[in-house]
C-alpha cells in the first residue's frame, strides 16, 4: 500500500516534469505582466493612476512603494522610538528587579502558596495552579494548539486541481532526494533519541513534584520525534507515527481532558465531593487528576510540535 502510494507520487512528479515543470509559474507571470485596463469610476483608483502610468511595464521597473519612501521610514522609526521611550519610562517607575514588594506579590499569590498542597496535592505550585485552579484555561490552551495544527493543515493541503499535482510532485521530490545515509546524524540520533524520549516522559511524569510538566515534557518529546524524522527516512517514522496516529492521540487526549475537567467541575471544583483522592503529596501517584492531565497535555504538545514540523517540511502529513 505504502509502496504503491509512493510510486503514484513519483509518477505524478514525472508527469509534472514532462508537462514543462514550471509551466504554471510562467503562465501566471505572463498573466501578471499583461497590463490591465484601468477600471473607471472609482475615486480610489484616480490616486493610483499616476503611479501606474509611471511604470508601464513591471518587468523593468517595479512601482515604488510607500514603504520605500523616506517619510514612511522616518515615521515608523519615530513611532517605534516613542513607544520604546514610553515603555522605558513606565518600567523605570516599577519596583526594581527582585524586590520583595513586586506588583504581583498579592493576596492571590499568598492563597495559592498556602493552599496548593492541601487542595490539589501538587508539590510544584505552578502545576497545581495551571492544571487545577486554572484547569479550564489550560484546556483552552491545548485546544488552541490543536486548532493551530488544523489551520496549518488546511492551509498547506487545500489546493486547486493543477496546484494539487504540483504539490504531490514536490512531495515526491522531497522524498526522493532526502538524505538516506547520513552516518553522523544517524549514529547520533540512534544514541540520543531514546534518551530524549525517556527524559521527556520523566519530565511529564514528575510534573507535579519537580520543575516541568506537560508542556515542557511534551516539547522535549516532540523534539525527539523531530530528530528521529530528520535522521532517518520518512518511511521509518511512518511505521509508528502517521497522520492517523496524530489524529487519534490528539483527539483522544483532548476528549479525556475535557471529560476529566468536566467531571471535576460538576462534582464541585473545590474538591467538595469529587471522589478523586489526592493521595499523599510528594508521591508519584498523587495529586488526583494532575498526573493524567499532565500526560494528556504532553501528548497533545508532542503531537503538535511534530505535526507542525512535518507539515512545514514536506507540505503534507
Amino acid at each position, binding site marked *: 500500500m505504502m509502496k504503491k502510494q509512493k510510486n503514484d507520487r513519483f509518477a505524478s512528479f514525472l508527469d509534472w516534469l514532462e508537462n514543462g515543470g514550471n509551466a504554471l509559474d510562467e503562465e501566471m507571470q505572463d498573466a501578471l505582466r499583461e497590463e*490591465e485596463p484601468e477600471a473607471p469610476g472609482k475615486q480610489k483608483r484616480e490616486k493610483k493612476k499616476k503611479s501606474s502610468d509611471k511604470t508601464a511595464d513591471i518587468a523593468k521597473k517595479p512601482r515604488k512603494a510607500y514603504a520605500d519612501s523616506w517619510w514612511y521610514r522616518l515615521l515608523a522609526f519615530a513611532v517605534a522610538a516613542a513607544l520604546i521611550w514610553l515603555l*522605558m519610562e513606565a518600567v523605570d517607575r*516599577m519596583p526594581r*528587579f527582585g*524586590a520583595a514588594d513586586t506588583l*504581583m506579590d498579592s493576596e492571590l499569590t499568598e492563597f495559592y502558596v498556602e493552599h496548593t498542597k492541601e487542595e490539589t496535592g501538587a508539590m510544584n505550585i505552578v502545576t497545581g495552579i495551571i492544571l487545577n485552579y486554572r484547569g479550564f484555561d*489550560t484546556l483552552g490552551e491545548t485546544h488552541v494548539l490543536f486548532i493551530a495544527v488544523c*489551520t496549518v493543515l488546511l492551509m498547506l493541503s487545500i489546493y486547486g486541481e493543477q496546484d494539487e499535482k504540483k504539490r504531490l510532485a514536490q512531495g515526491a521530490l522531497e522524498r526522493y532526494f532526502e538524505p538516506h545515509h547520513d552516518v553522523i546524524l544517524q549514529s547520533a540520533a540512534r544514541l540520543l533519541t531514546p534518551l530524549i524520549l525517556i527524559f521527556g516522559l520523566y519530565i511529564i511524569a514528575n510534573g507535579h513534584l519537580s520543575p516541568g510538566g506537560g508542556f515542557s515534557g511534551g516539547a522535549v518529546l516532540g523534539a525527539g520525534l523531530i530528530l528521529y524524522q530528520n535522521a532517518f527516512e520518512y518511511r521509518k517514522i511512518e511505521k509508528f507515527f502517521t497522520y492517523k496516529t496524530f489524529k487519534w492521540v490528539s483527539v483522544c487526549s483532548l476528549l479525556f481532558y475535557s471529560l476529566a475537567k468536566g467531571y471535576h467541575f460538576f462534582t464541585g471544583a473545590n474538591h467538595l465531593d469529587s471522589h478523586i483522592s489526592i493521595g499523599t503529596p510528594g508521591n508519584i501517584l498523587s495529586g488526583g487528576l494532575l498526573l493524567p492531565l499532565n500526560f494528556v497535555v504532553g501528548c497533545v504538545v508532542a503531537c503538535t510540535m511534530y505535526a507542525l514540523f512535518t507539515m512545514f517540511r514536506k507540505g503534507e502529513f
Partner: protein
Amino acid sequence: MLGRVFTHLDGLTAVALFGIGFALLLLDKNLMKKIIGFSMMDSGIYLFLASYGYIEGRLAPIYAEGISDPAAYVNPLPAGLVLTGIVVGVSVTAVMLGLTVRLYERYHSLDIDEIAEKIRREGK
C-alpha cells in the same frame, strides 16, 4: 533614569526586545522578518512578566521540606501566565508561517509590497 538602568535591567531588556520587534514589524518588507519581529515582541512580554515574579532570596515555587510560609517562595502566578502566552505564541507563529507559505506559492515573493502590487494587478 540612566543611573537606575542596572536595577531595572530585566524590564529595560524586555522593553528593548519589544521595541526591536516592533520596529522590525514596521520597517522590514520581508514577511519572514516580520514574523521574527513578532516573535521578538512575544519574547519581550514573556521576559517582562516572568521577571516580575522573581523575588530575591526566595525559593522556587516547589514545596521544600517543612516550609509552607508564603514569604519563602517566589511568585508562581507569572510562570503560569507566561506558559499560556508561550503556547499561544507558538500557535500564532505557526499560522503566520502557513499563510506565508501559501502567499509565496501564489506570488513567488516574500516582499509584502510586491505581493500587494501583484494582487492589485490581478484586479482583486
